[in-house]
């Protein structure tokens, strides 16, 4: 009983881990498949073809992801992997997946024979884009961007601040004047902000959302969200545009101008788009 319970728990845990690990993978976002059984096999094949580039943990999670949706065939698959000549449709699909893990060249052809030929065009496209982007990220080359941090809007909302925090707002509202910052290719707005704050001794607190792989800036220089009213917090713009998504997801280009600005009105008072009113 106890052993069975433990096994069941482990399986559940694996399922949860798979669900968490699967959401951000690019292969899932590119494929919009009619049935779940086919998409999962498609994912496994693409991941195995790009085996040298992708890291080991992601590979294992995606291969174990297949049994989660197609529960019945997989138990057969392990036994019927050698005797692939059996007739039923689900088992043949599973065996193709099993063989592709062992022999790489066959992987590109096997799914096409198993399913309708609409899918592989998109699924094979994913590895190629990966291969092209991978070398550029690995090469370190220094680039520069401009970074500025200000809280000018708070000058009009000083009465909303707590007593101890009023002294934190500078006279001109500039926490960090615009300066050129070097970064390596592939770094995000968040990386640059973190490094610069640390170098200049500016307190900064963030929280990481693991599900979305991004960071949220809670406060800079001890000025936190909600300090200047219920609609206040930190926002960033790059080249004058507010991207309105996670700063850890914004990959910088050379020459970008980043501005971190404190808003008291959901971005409406600093020239951003107010998405919430």
């Amino acid at each position: 009983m106890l052993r069975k319970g433990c096994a069941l728990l482990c399986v559940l845990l694996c399922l949860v881990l798979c669900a968490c690990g699967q959401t951000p993978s690019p292969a899932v976002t590119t494929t919009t498949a009619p049935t779940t059984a086919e998409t999962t096999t498609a994912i496994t094949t693409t991941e195995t073809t790009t085996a040298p580039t992708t890291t080991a943990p992601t590979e294992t999670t995606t291969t174990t992801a297949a049994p989660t949706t197609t529960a019945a065939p997989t138990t057969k698959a392990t036994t019927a992997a050698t005797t692939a000549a059996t007739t039923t449709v689900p088992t043949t699909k599973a065996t193709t997946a099993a063989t592709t893990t062992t022999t790489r060249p066959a992987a590109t052809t096997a799914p096409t024979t198993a399913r309708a030929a609409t899918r592989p065009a998109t699924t094979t496209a994913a590895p190629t884009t990966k291969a092209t982007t991978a070398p550029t990220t690995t090469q370190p080359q220094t680039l520069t961007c401009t970074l500025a941090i200000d809280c000018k809007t708070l000058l009009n909302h000083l009465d909303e601040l707590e007593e101890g925090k009023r002294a934190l707002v500078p006279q001109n509202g500039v926490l960090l004047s615009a300066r050129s910052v070097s970064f390596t290719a592939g770094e995000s707005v968040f990386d640059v902000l973190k490094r610069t704050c640390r170098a200049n001794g500016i307190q900064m607190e963030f929280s990481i959302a693991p599900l979305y792989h991004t960071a949220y800036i809670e406060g800079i220089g001890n000025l936190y969200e909600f300090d200047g009213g219920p609609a206040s917090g930190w926002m960033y713009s790059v080249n004058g545009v507010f991207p309105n998504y996670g700063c850890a997801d914004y990959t910088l280009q050379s020459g970008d101008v980043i501005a971190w600005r404190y808003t008291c009105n959901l971005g409406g008072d600093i020239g951003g788009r107010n998405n919430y009113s």
Partner: protein
Amino acid sequence: MERMRAIDRLHPGVSLLFFVCAVGGTLLLEHPLLRLCSLCGALCCHLALCPGQSKRFLLKGALPLCAFAALLNPLFNHRGAHILFYFPWGNPCTGESLLYGVMSACLLLSVLLWFRCYAAVMTREKGLFLFSRAAPSLTLLLRLCFRFLPAFRRALERTRDAQTGLLGPPRTKREALRRAFAAFRVRLRAALTDAVEVSDAMRSRGYGLPGRTVYDRFSLHRRDRLCLLALAALSLPVFGAYAAGLLKFSYFPSPHGAAVSPFALFCAALFGLLCFFPLILQRSEVSAWRT
């Protein structure tokens, strides 16, 4: 031979008022000076009121818990102007968060100690005397609840002993588990029967009926009135100052608030006297008997 404690001779209401003032003040007043006063008072009172228990309680229970609480705060709180170092995951560890953690650990420790003292002073009969008239059934219910777990554990141990005496030590783990479940089942059934019996017994005595009178062992003497006056004189100015916002203190972004002014020192002295109230009472008693 156990020495007679001065606070035991007080009226239960006065003792209760003292504990309410001490714990309430500890929880409300954020000023570090007052918090340290409370901690010192609680420690000394615990040493005096629960002799021989302090060392074990502090080392085994309270201090590790408080150290854990103090260290936990900087892990999750990154506010503060003084950055000490950076955690591996990127957020700063600030001096203020560390200070705040230490001060909240002090709060935790002093409240724990105060409640230990309360349990040592306010015996069962005092508690029943104080609350049984206002809320008879609730008092009885709480009393039974608090008694339930220790009594249940003792009874369970007796049952386990009887099992090993009758059947010998268990041979397999499976058997041990089965026996444990059997003992638990038996004890649970007995506890339910006991509860019914107790409630029947109390009802047959007319407990909680409207016209029922209570025999008072305690009455307000002149001594008690003096103590009440003293408690009021010590606590009212401090709580008044708190209500007026004169003892505000905040740790973020940097420690600020009521400075160490003469007034703050005066309040701290009053609150310190309040926290040492049982010891002062004891001292006056000793000197009164000696002369």
